[in-house]
């Protein structure tokens, strides 16, 4: 690369030269548009953030029926909006681990039963009131209350008592839990003045932006919070979040420059979009997975051999290639993958093996056909994936019938009701949380009706184990139990596919969910 070009790209990054003339100069030197564009991104990262300007974000998932109350947030748009104006006690770090937010630091008693969060000193809510441990306490109480409709109620159940002492918020647990701080990263648990009891949907928080104007399910406008404590976060002076539910509307809004970043790029167009000169497609491998779930307590799926037969009868590579278009990785019938902190990569692999499947089918003594229910909204292209499963199972002599259910009512009538259906999981930040949400015998969302005493025991002892090596070994064993005995067929983990225009810079791969765990609008900046 010529020094001149490098010099010029730095000028663009510092805002001294406009992008169009740079592209012109680069073309004159025989450098293609894509190469020139990536030069600018590199230079922009090296030059550091530029303050000011407006970033527009197009996200999927919002509806006019949403509320600003953090307790009821349940879709991508609601999470994005919460992240802008509010903060939890702690947050997932960029590369795993935890980052302090409203809590400056935290520590636990040696047995991980009592946790103390020290509230950051000198920070205030956007209405000017200082943040106290009492506010944190009131917030947590609101989400933990018996009457609470909070989506975080489930993770608050392990708490015995909570109190505020000076600057400290102290949690005492019923049973030890080494992962408690991870639970506090839940997006519902935004610290609100007086816990938001009086005004749950007031959107007053400690976040880097302040909500200025909004229309539910349409548009949210934020302005920079001038008193925000962390100078690393929130570079643009205005951020606009637009609800764009239609896939084509979202991708074309990015292409035509109406928004600077979007989430949920459909896999089938991601490759095409990446070829556009002004757009970068960003993939992040995450804990989300697409699943086929069987009820372990309902015939014929109460037969372990039949479950194994079905696990060996699915062609995972084919699904990743044809359903995810390569934007994902093969799953191994455990909900855990490399994005979890204590992941073991040495587990035996369930691969497509019609002979083994036929063997287990014979062992099971089951003769007949299995009914699989699916719908378009259980995961993208779920009916197609079911048809592929049907074909690969046929080769093993398993007769799979597919029943297509309507999207409307799928989550109330089919999922967690019918014995065999397609579904998806977004994943959780830790193994403990994932297993306790869906695989513990008493879990709220035990959608495979999996009940195993040894699994439950391991989960509780791993939760209290502070030795990382032992803990990792326990989680390995739990994954093995699930693979062998569980009702989960997890053929694939889906990547998050986002896209950004080259008007903004500063993208870095992050742990968590899409759009840099929804922090992209705050961590990225307007580059030109």
């Amino acid at each position, binding site marked *: 690369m010529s020094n001149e070009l490098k010099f010029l790209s730095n000028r663009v990054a510092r805002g001294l030269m406009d992008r169009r003339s740079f592209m012109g100069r680069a073309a004159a030197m025989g450098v293609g548009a894509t190469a020139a564009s990536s030069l600018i991104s590199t230079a922009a990262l090296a030059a550091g953030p530029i303050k000011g300007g407006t970033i527009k974000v197009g996200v999927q998932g919002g509806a006019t*029926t949403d509320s600003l109350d953090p307790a009821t947030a349940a879709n991508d748009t609601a999470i994005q909006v919460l992240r802008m104006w509010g903060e939890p006690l702690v947050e997932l770090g960029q590369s795993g681990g935890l980052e302090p937010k409203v809590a400056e630091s935290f520590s636990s008693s040696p047995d991980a039963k009592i946790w103390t969060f020290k509230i950051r000193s000198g920070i205030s809510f956007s209405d000017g009131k200082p943040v106290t441990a009492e506010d944190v306490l009131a917030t947590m109480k609101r989400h933990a209350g018996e009457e609470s409709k909070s989506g975080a109620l489930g993770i608050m159940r392990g708490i015995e008592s909570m109190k505020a002492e000076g600057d400290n918020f102290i949690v005492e647990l019923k049973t030890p839990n080494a992962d408690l701080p991870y639970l506090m990263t839940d997006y519902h648990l935004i610290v609100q003045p007086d816990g938001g009891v009086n005004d749950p949907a007031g959107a007053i928080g400690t976040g880097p932006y302040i909500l200025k*104007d909004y*229309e539910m399910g349409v*548009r949210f406008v934020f302005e920079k919070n001038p008193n925000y404590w962390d100078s690393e976060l929130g570079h643009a002076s205005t951020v606009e979040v*637009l609800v764009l539910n239609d896939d084509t509307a979202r991708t074309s809004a990015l*292409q035509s420059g109406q928004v600077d970043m979007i989430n949920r790029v459909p896999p089938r167009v991601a490759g095409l979009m990446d070829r556009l000169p002004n757009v970068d497609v960003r993939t992040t491998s995450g804990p989300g997975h697409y699943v086929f779930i069987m009820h372990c307590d309902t015939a014929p799926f109460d037969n372990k051999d039949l479950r194994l037969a079905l696990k060996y009868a699915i062609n995972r590579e084919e699904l990743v290639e044809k359903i995810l278009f390569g934007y994902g990785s093969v799953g191994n019938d455990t909900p855990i993958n490399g994005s979890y902190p204590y992941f073991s990569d040495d587990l035996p692999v369930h691969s497509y093996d019609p002979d083994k499947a036929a063997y287990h089918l014979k062992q099971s003594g089951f003769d007949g056909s299995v009914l699989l229910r699916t719908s378009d909204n259980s995961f993208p292209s779920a009916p197609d994936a079911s048809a592929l499963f049907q074909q690969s199972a046929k080769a093993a002599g398993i007769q799979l019938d597919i029943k297509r259910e309507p999207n409307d009512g799928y989550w109330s009538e089919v999922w967690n009701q019918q014995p065999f259906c397609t579904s998806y999981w977004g994943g959780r930040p830790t193994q403990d949380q994932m297993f306790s949400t869906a695989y513990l015998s008493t879990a709220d969302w035990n959608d495979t009706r999996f009940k195993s005493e040894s699994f439950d025991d391991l989960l509780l002892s791993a939760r209290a184990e502070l030795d990382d090596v032992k803990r990792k070994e326990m989680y390995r064993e739990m994954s093995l139990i699930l693979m062998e005995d569980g009702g989960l067929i997890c053929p694939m983990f889906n990547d998050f596919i986002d896209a950004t225009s080259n008007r903004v810079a500063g993208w870095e791969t992050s742990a968590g969910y899409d759009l840099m765990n929804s922090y992209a609008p705050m961590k990225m900046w307007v580059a030109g």
Partner: protein
Amino acid sequence: MSPLITLVAQRIALGLLLLLAVSVLIFAGTELLPGDVAASILGQSATPEALANMRRDMGLDEPAVSRYFSWLFSAIQGDLGTALTSGQEISSQIASRLGNTLFLAFWAAVIAVPLAVFLGLLAVRYEGRWPDKAISAVTLASISLPEFFIGYLLIYFVAVKLGWFPSVATIYPSMSLGEKLHAIGLPVAVLVMVVLAHMMRMTRAAILNVMQSAYIETAELKGLNQFKIIWRHAFPNAIAPVVNVVMLNLAYLIVGVVVVEVIFVYPGMGQYLVDHVSKRDVPVVQACGLIFAAVYIGLNLIADVVSIATNPRLRHPK
């Protein structure tokens, strides 16, 4: 009293009666849905006590007939109740949504109606020759394509490739009129293309029908020029069918544009209704149903009155 006023009064009374019948249908339809409002608010975790409490609070334990009348009377007074999902007044929510929908429909109509009539007149003037055929071919082609397809085509060529208009038509109160009009450029274009053919063909057919009459021949023999004959002599007699089809299309522009709203992310009534249907927010669905029915009936009423007013035979019945 003049017979015209009597006729109009009759029509209005009939319209109101029809609206009342529709309100019964809407109420009965939502009653037939499985589960009731209390069950859909409380969800799966509902206990029998909580359900009973909620039903009593909402007056659901009263018989359907008395609930229908209390709903009807508050609806007449402009109180459409509160949305179950957000707990907000439905009337104020709907007001801004309906405003947006009317804004889009208004500008689509302002362009489509005169254009359709003009093209219809033009087609009659050059009947059977190439302008007639070209107009018919283009408008029929545009009505034959599904509206989402036209929408995507326009987004791709006009918004992405040429960058003339935005692909996202979100409008909000702080925008100036000019900005709003620029934002809705593409959805208006799609709607115009969708409704144009119907109105144009009807204008053409109605005028051609009149053109067979003896008095047109007289006008021709007087030596009037062709366009003047069509505009001054034939068109006034063809107004009734044209107004009918115009009103039908206006109603479509208001109540039938969900697909266009979704594609262009336009915050109108359609999107609002769909969101609430999927959340089983029955009061909002009832309110939207009632408003849509009122729009349909109202516009058809106008069409009837205009046809009567422009037709001396109907004005002076024997």
